[in-house]
């Protein structure tokens, strides 16, 4: 694996991720997650739904970047169609914009420029996929990094919001690692058939995302 991909997977990449909880903050506010076991359950569901969707879009974007084609608007529309919640679309585009800025500086690549020209604020998984391609990654690696980020972001938010034991949280993440591998394999199975890419929904995450937007107290953007 190209070591540039490690930078992309690192939560220290300055791409705005630290201010997004992936629905964990509204779950905490609702009293649905209070401990490590609850977090593990939350993450298992998130990984298999929005994690899989994001990983599949990232794999598709990575494969597309390697071809040199530029149908970015069409792929962005596929992300829109899999994100019925306006709050989640907004969060995804905000993170996409931030990652695009970071990626263009960190790994200059023609596909990043083409994406930036075609879509003003592309969806986050698409930028992730193109960034992986810029770091010489495969669609499967793009999917792995994306699925990994789908659980590490909320896990980090849980440590901050609930004061959970970071060692216990990392044990949970390690337990979910084989799930990340399974999801990445499914996500990258057919990255060129955009219409058929996975689209599993998580109705509770959709509801949480919208509730969060109208909450009085918010530490995280999403």
């Amino acid at each position, binding site marked *: 694996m190209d070591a540039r991909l490690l930078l992309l997977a690192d939560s*220290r*990449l*300055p*791409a*705005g*991720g*630290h*201010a*997004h*909880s992936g629905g964990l903050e509204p779950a905490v506010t609702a009293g649905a997650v209070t401990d490590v076991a609850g977090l593990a359950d939350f993450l298992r569901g998130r990984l298999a739904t929005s994690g899989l969707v994001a990983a599949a879009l990232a794999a598709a974007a990575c494969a597309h970047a390697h071809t040199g084609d530029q149908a970015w608007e069409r792929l962005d529309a596929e992300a829109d169609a899999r994100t019925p919640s306006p709050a989640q679309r907004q969060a995804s585009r*905000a993170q996409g*914009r*931030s990652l695009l*800025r*970071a990626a263009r500086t960190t790994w200059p690549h023609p596909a990043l420029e083409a994406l930036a020209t075609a879509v003003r604020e592309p969806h986050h998984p698409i930028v992730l996929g193109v960034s992986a391609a810029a770091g010489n990654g495969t669609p499967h690696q793009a999917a792995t990094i994306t699925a990994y980020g789908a659980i590490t972001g909320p896990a980090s*938010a849980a440590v*901050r*919001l609930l004061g959970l034991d970071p060692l216990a949280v990392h044990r949970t993440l390690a337990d979910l690692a084989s799930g990340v591998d399974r999801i990445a394999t499914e996500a990258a199975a057919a990255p060129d058939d955009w219409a058929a890419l996975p689209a599993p929904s998580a109705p509770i995450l959709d509801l949480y995302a919208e509730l969060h937007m109208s909450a*009085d*107290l*918010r*530490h*995280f*953007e999403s």
Partner: protein
Amino acid sequence: MGANHDHDPHTAAPAHGRALRLGIGGPVGSGKTALTAALCRTLRDEFDLAVVTNDIYTTEDADFLRRNAVLPDDRITAVRTGCCPHTAIRDDISANLDAVEALEERHPGLDLIIVESGGDNLTALFSQGLADRQIFVLDVAGGDDVPRKGGLGVAAADLLVINKTDLAPMVGSDLDMMARDSSRVRNGRPVAFTSLREQPGAPEVADWVRSVLHEARHDNSHTARNHDHAAAS
């Protein structure tokens, strides 16, 4: 062209062709939001201004500024920091850059964007990628030994503001000692003692901001003129 610039400060291009970005940091309760409001009131008729607030968990600071109508609503943006205010101004400045860029798009010709940090500890420092200049705000009630202890914010900020001097007699803070300690850890960089209660317009800080803006303009118009020459020759 050059002569006109002297008459109308707004025609000069801001630093680097964009608004000057001024960070205001400091511990919780030291008066960052009150200082931001004071600067807006004092400077808004001279300069084209906007503000980004980094609230810890609410939009309270932004709401305070809106309620007090120091600027129109669309010139105030709140950023959320995921429980880590210093991360958002130092390690990962993405959200603040997005907010700054959005303000610049909405208001072309901005002279100054104030980025007010959430309450930080004494090690907090604005990234050079976010702020062109930074002010660190302490208050006398936080302990008169704080300047001596230093910390990155106290030592490295372009201007150290020691606020709430009217409280010094009540909390037993030694202002002279604070001044001595500050100048020692700051290698002579400026320190301003303020009391927003006694002088609500923060005139000394406002003067410093004016000088910074003029300096930035001068640098910029200088660069621009050199550019013109280069293009002409």
